[in-house]
């Protein structure tokens, strides 16, 4: 994980308080206002253990470099949607449908890669009604110990869809319910620390970085980012 900068908040509690009403207010003024993502705390959300500062990492897109080629979708799908072939587990064929990163393309041409923003305050986990396991502290939706990526325990998940809604209403809407089970899918796995999308993007548009609260467009839906960038890039007023 050589390309991960070690981000540590000096004072987690001083981070901007965040609630849904605030967020909607910001959305409404949106437009030229820089849309910020705030996080309640960088401390581990639940489990009752002693507070520990954690480093959250994510896939960051440079929208000015992305060409909308969707190579990232195919490599993400191949790596994360493995296939059983003659008793052997092999990378999949790269069908973008199974990708955890999605490219949304607009007219005028703007292409927005969207992957899990790894929000430290994880509204998705907060929304999950399944009780925390006393031993692990995990709900049905939880963070992977190594990468801190959001994972779903298929055995405990009830398919209620609360997490899907939370992500859709409060953040970028990356969590998609499985069409049959309604259980959450498409949460970025960070490819276990070796992000394939970053490695294979032919244009160097993606990077593996530390989540930085306050970074522009953090956890913002693609439509809104596209609207803002269209204005910035294609309007002749400025």
């Amino acid at each position, binding site marked *: 994980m050589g390309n991960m900068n070690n981000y540590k908040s000096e004072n987690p509690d001083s981070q901007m308080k965040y609630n849904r009403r605030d967020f909607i207010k910001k959305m409404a003024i949106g437009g030229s206002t820089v849309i910020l993502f705030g996080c309640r705390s960088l401390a581990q959300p639940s489990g009752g253990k002693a507070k520990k500062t954690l480093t959250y990492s994510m896939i960051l897109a440079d929208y000015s470099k992305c060409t909308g*080629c*969707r190579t990232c979708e195919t490599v993400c799908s191949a790596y994360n949607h493995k296939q059983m072939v003659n008793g052997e587990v*092999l990378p999949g064929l790269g*069908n973008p449908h199974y990708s955890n990163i999605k490219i949304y393309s607009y007219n005028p041409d703007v292409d927005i890669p969207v992957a899990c923003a790894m929000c430290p305050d994880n509204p998705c986990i907060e929304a999950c009604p399944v009780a925390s396991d006393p031993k692990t502290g995990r709900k049905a939706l939880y963070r992977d110990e190594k990468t801190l990526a959001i994972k779903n325990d298929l055995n405990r998940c009830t398919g209620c869809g609360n997490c899907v809604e939370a992500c859709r209403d409060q953040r970028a809407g990356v969590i998609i319910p499985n069409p049959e089970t309604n259980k959450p899918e498409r949460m970025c796995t960070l490819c276990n620390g070796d992000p394939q999308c970053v490695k294979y993007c032919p244009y160097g548009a993606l990077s593996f970085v530390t989540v930085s609260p306050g970074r522009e467009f953090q956890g913002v839906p693609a439509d809104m980012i596209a609207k803002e960038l269209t204005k910035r890039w294609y*309007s002749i007023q400025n």
Partner: protein
Amino acid sequence: MAHKKPGYHGVLLDINLTTGKSSPKKISSQDIGMFIGGRGLGMKILWDRLKKPGIDPLSPENPLMFMPGPFSGFPIPSSSRTCVVTKSPCTSSLHSSYPFASTVSYSNVGGFFGPEIRFAGYDGIVITGRASAPVYIVIDNDRVEIREAKKFWGMGTDEFDKKFIEELGDRRFRTCYIGPAGENQVSYACIIHTAARAAGRGTGCVMGSKNLKAIAVRGSMIPDVADHKQFLAALEEASQAFKGISGTLLTKIWRRSGTAVSIERSSKKGSMAVKNYREGTFSEIDKIGADAARKFWIRDFACFCCPLSCKKSGVIKNGAYAGLIHDGPEYETGTMFGANLMVSDLEGLMKAVFNGDDYGLDIISTGNVIGFLMEAYEKGIIDKEFLDGIELKWGNIDAILKMIDKIAKREGVGDLASKGVKALSKRIGKDSEKFAIHVKGLELAAWNVHVEPPKGICYATSNRGACHQSGNTVEAQNFRAMIDSIGICRFTTDWGHWYLPGLGSDNFSRILTAITGIEWTKEELMKSGERIFNLEKMINYREGFRRVDDNLPDRFFEEPLSVGSEKGAVLHREKFSEMLDEYYKIRGWDPETTKPGKSRLERLGLSFTLQDHQI
């Protein structure tokens, strides 16, 4: 599907707009093995469906096909192309006895449409019939719906692109559609994709004749491959081949300028369409080339899994068209509305390109037609009244914009002009056919031929009329027919002298073998290219196309270039005829009639075409 071949769904989506019914149809494994997919498989279906010569291309019988290839949908670099195959509404033959005789048509378009057809579970879409009122089709995996499109009829492609995706409610749908030109059945209307990519050369006219405004596709499938491990290895090899060259000069040029890099180069070499092909060099070329356009380019965009991003989108910052957002100019659009019409006003040129695309016109043919009218007007063969009062002088952007309007709407002079340059010159007469720049009724593209006789062979022998992409030699033509059938972009192949040394026939055969389980070798691939080209020829031959139809306009033999570094260049009629003789000899075709020889057809597995009593 029990007979499914690896690498294919083995299924075509067959939609009849007259009955409103759609159904999956099996594809024979033999056809897959012989014709690959894309252009090749499309041609085989065209042969099977037309059954007889002389069918009106604008009749419900003419199938309109969207054909991805076996590479489509897999993450193979630049495997983004779809071939639109149909019987051409643009071409006609000199002596055929069939009133609606026309050639085959195959139009290649990049972007995301072809891969999505494969994601939806099909190896192609075949549309026949005619809806009684405007409709659009939504294909969502196995759900196919035909919906009313009345409210969209008449809408320009740029606005429609945005409105349609809103109506569909999911940005992950991939769409293609026609503009007013296709609706009005301008013979050279296009099918547009992403408001910026086009399947040109008349396909939009056929779509319009079916009352079909648009198609939307979305899917979640992909065929299996025959050898999973070998496929992954071949893929890695291909992506390494690209890694090796990304950062090289060739990649940089594509990314930096796209095809527009050729605008200045071609003018310098004398190979550009200038002043209705009278010249090959334009003195004001620096005003409309890539370096001039760079000032309003904002970003590069790419097709599915393509590492080149040859497309540029931008916004005009000042002048009469300030605020206009569009992509380009590319080599073809920039030349046909630029140098060919003596336009040096880049902002005006971009406005013309935008309007052309927005109407869904083929800019190659439109620029060619307007160039012809400008010359006829200059020569006094037609007057201002003929032009409905338009002062159609070289370089006059306002007049050009007016003419584009008239053509797309088929108003006044635009109605005649909408039928193409061959029909126009026939109507005008007075020796104007000498500067009506077409072959078999299809207008030449932005590459001039005075300085490049092999390009003349390319135009003269192309199976869809004057196509600049057909290939200058027999080998190039076979190679390109194969490429168009696999579903990959020509710009990333190693063919020729200046394309990327990235992917070659060796890579293709390895990947295709892993995907299909059919032992494809380089030789077999080239042979299927030859097979496909010959099947096209047999369709054309059946329609009545003969050697007289493989000819170039007199201009290239009679009027040497008068400016530029290649001043004096002109084609030599006898030598050109000898080149054609040589061409037919290599092809194994009769030099008098151009009929493909029996033994060649047998060797290619095309004996079935000889059993057709109409040939």
